[in-house]
């Protein structure tokens, strides 16, 4: 077999893995691979303006499409700039392969120019990582990296590529399939456990399905819907789970947790059976753990055994792919003799109770004359886009308003940094999503703080002609932190007030994009309409009520029933 250079192996492997686009930024330690990609010419390279942007773009691409996102950056500072993006993807289980250049193997450990131990740095925030020491190992490592990134509970994998490995030669044996003896992601859930779960479902009178991001990752939304509908069980979702079940469905209770709906949190607190699917009982969901769902038995389906029994005691654990687990559960429902009417009858009281809670405190805000309410902007956006847009968010109030007031009916339409809560995520993620779906409408809902963390990617969006719409809810505050200060720190607004905010319309224009601004409520509809109609990247800035809060709110460490309401 003819020998191949490391850099060509990388290109060849990427092609075999079906990679169509790479997000990255060049440098001395990765120049050879950029060169090989250019010569080959099949894979699109998106040149970002900051490596963090590349990682979030790859992540957004992966979340929107379900494929593996790929990044390519240089050694040293290029590599360290990817850390936040890698950690973001890790926390939300996003499949990603990040390739970093490295100094030649002979120089490793010598504090060489632009040398950094990126494998050491990213060990705790990658699913796995590799330093390639010999070009002979490269084909297998590339294969393993993609396999590990996308299988089981997905996650980011980093490959560190010393310059001499990129240029060394070896045989290229690239298997179609691999098996790793030490890595066996469990797939088939235990049928006995599924039956036990079904017995609990049959006994329950106040059941709730609590769906997380795992449902979306597993592509289990249809099975989830089948279970909910066939047993007339209401569904609440985590931030990561929004879209796993239609937000407009009669059985949807919307989001739960710190800024969840009153109804969802009351449902969990009073439920006698929680069916958790691909969710991990994170502290933002449970609130004070001792007071969480004290009356409920818990069924927990997750592909990652470490998620089960980590935060709460589970009655029926089901380890495995939650699509298969749900399918089996739906089968169990079908095989049983309980009719649709009987299920409805059983849960009628419960559903009525939920309805009453929802009517008592629906997701709600107060309109005030003369000021723009951010919730109104989102509601309007939902209306005008008919709920069909891919929404990315930054982090803070903007993110929570987006989650509360845009209704997500389809999976992979809300891309948001849940676990890490990374400001600056939304805009580059929108770039990735738009690369995956050039014909869809992609909107980043941003705060004036977050958008400034990766605003440089305007240049990338312009260069790639990506018609992303950015909605900036400008309160001239780091709003979410300010809200905490208002509620828990006697309104001492330490380090959250922006004395200076740039003119975002002019920023858009400086990049050659279009900008619109609304400062009065009556301008909102018009700005949205014009902004959504305009070709190319558009910034829509809304001067919102400065001290508007996100409600309901469960103060950190409190029980989820202790909600502060509007």
């Amino acid at each position, binding site marked *: 077999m003819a020998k191949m250079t490391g850099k060509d192996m990388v290109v060849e492997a990427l092609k075999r893995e079906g990679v169509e686009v790479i997000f990255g930024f060049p440098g001395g330690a990765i120049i050879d691979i950029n060169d090989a990609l250019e010569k080959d010419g099949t894979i699109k390279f998106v040149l970002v303006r900051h490596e963090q942007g590349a990682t979030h773009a790859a992540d957004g691409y992966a979340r929107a499409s379900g494929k593996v996102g790929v990044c390519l950056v240089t050694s040293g500072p290029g590599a360290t700039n990817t850390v936040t993006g890698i950690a973001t993807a890790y926390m939300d289980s996003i499949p990603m392969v990040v390739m970093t250049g490295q100094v030649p193997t002979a120089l490793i450990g010598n504090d060489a120019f632009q040398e950094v131990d990126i*494998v050491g740095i990213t060990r705790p925030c990658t*699913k796995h990582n590799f330093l390639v020491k010999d070009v002979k190992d490269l084909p297998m490592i590339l294969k393993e990296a993609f396999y590990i990134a996308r299988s089981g509970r997905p996650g980011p994998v980093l490959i560190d590529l010393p310059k001499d490995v990129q240029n060394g030669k070896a045989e290229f044996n690239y298997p179609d399939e691999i098996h790793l003896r030490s890595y066996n992601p469990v797939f088939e859930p235990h049928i006995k456990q599924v039956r036990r779960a079904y017995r609990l479902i049959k006994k329950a009178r106040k059941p709730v399905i609590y769906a997380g991001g795992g449902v979306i990752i597993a592509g289990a939304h249809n099975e989830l819907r089948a279970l909910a509908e066939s047993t007339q069980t209401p569904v609440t979702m985590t931030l990561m789970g929004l879209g796993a079940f239609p937000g407009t469905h009669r059985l949807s209770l919307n989001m739960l947790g710190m800024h969840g709906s009153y109804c969802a949190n009351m449902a969990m607190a009073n439920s006698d059976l929680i069916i958790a699917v691909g969710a991990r009982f994170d502290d933002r969901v449970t609130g004070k753990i001792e007071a969480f769902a004290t009356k409920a038995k818990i069924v927990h389906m997750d592909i990652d*055994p*470490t998620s089960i*029994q980590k935060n709460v005691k589970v009655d029926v654990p089901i380890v495995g792919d939650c699509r298969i687990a749900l399918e089996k559960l739906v089968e169990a429902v079908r095989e049983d003799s309980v009719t649709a009417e009987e299920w409805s009858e059983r849960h009628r009281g419960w559903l009525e109770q939920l309805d009453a809670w929802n009517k008592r405190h629906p997701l709600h805000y107060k309109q005030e004359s003369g000021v723009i309410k951010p919730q109104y902007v989102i509601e309007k956006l939902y209306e005008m886009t008919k709920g069909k847009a891919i929404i990315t968010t930054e982090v803070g109030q903007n993110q929570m308003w987006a989650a509360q007031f845009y209704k997500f009916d389809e999976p992979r339409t809300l891309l948001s940094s849940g676990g890490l809560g990374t400001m600056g995520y939304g805009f580059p993620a929108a770039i990735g999503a738009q690369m995956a779906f050039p014909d869809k409408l992609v909107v980043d809902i941003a705060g004036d703080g977050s958008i400034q963390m990766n605003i440089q990617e305007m240049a990338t969006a312009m260069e790639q002609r990506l018609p992303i719409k950015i909605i900036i809810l400008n309160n001239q505050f780091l709003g979410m932190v300010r809200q905490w200060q208002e509620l828990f720190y006697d309104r001492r607004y330490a380090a959250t007030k922006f004395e200076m905010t740039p003119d975002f319309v002019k920023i858009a224009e400086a990049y050659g994009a279009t900008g619109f601004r609304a400062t009065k409520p009556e301008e909102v509809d018009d700005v949205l309409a014009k902004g959504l109609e305009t070709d190319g990247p558009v910034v829509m800035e809304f001067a919102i009520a400065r001290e508007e809060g996100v409600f309901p709110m469960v103060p950190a460490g409190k029980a989820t029933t202790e909600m502060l309401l509007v």
Partner: protein
Amino acid sequence: MRHTLSVLVENTPGALSRITGLFSGRGFNIESLCVAATLDPTLSTLTLVTYGDDFIIEQIIKQLNRLVDVYKVIDVTEGEFVEREMALIKVKAEAETRAEVLRMCDIFRCKVVDVSSKTYTVEVTGPKSKLKAVIELLTPIGIKEITRTGTIAMIREKKTV
């Protein structure tokens, strides 16, 4: 409770660091850690003594299993097992104490592995309790230095009648 885990890991660079990183990152305790090759050169055994309630031990085992490099985790404390540790103890051995040190070595079946005009270096092997007893008895005589291997363990083979 104290648990001794036997962890079989791929013999790859970084595997050990992944494991210790897991313990420090998640706030688990390591009492001792001992790593060595196995008969299969591609695998190493890591014997790890840790403590925590059942909840934590379950998490530790699951988290270890989640690491791509970890082949197998066995909680040897679950069943019958043998556990050994070795210590080298350099103890003051001057005219009046030399005989006493030797007598203790005899009782505990320790070996003297190095001798100088002022010290004996004693090798002691056994379960933790034995090491503890020896150290306690030698302390009044004057221990100058100790190094210990950390615990290694093995499940007892089932005895057929």
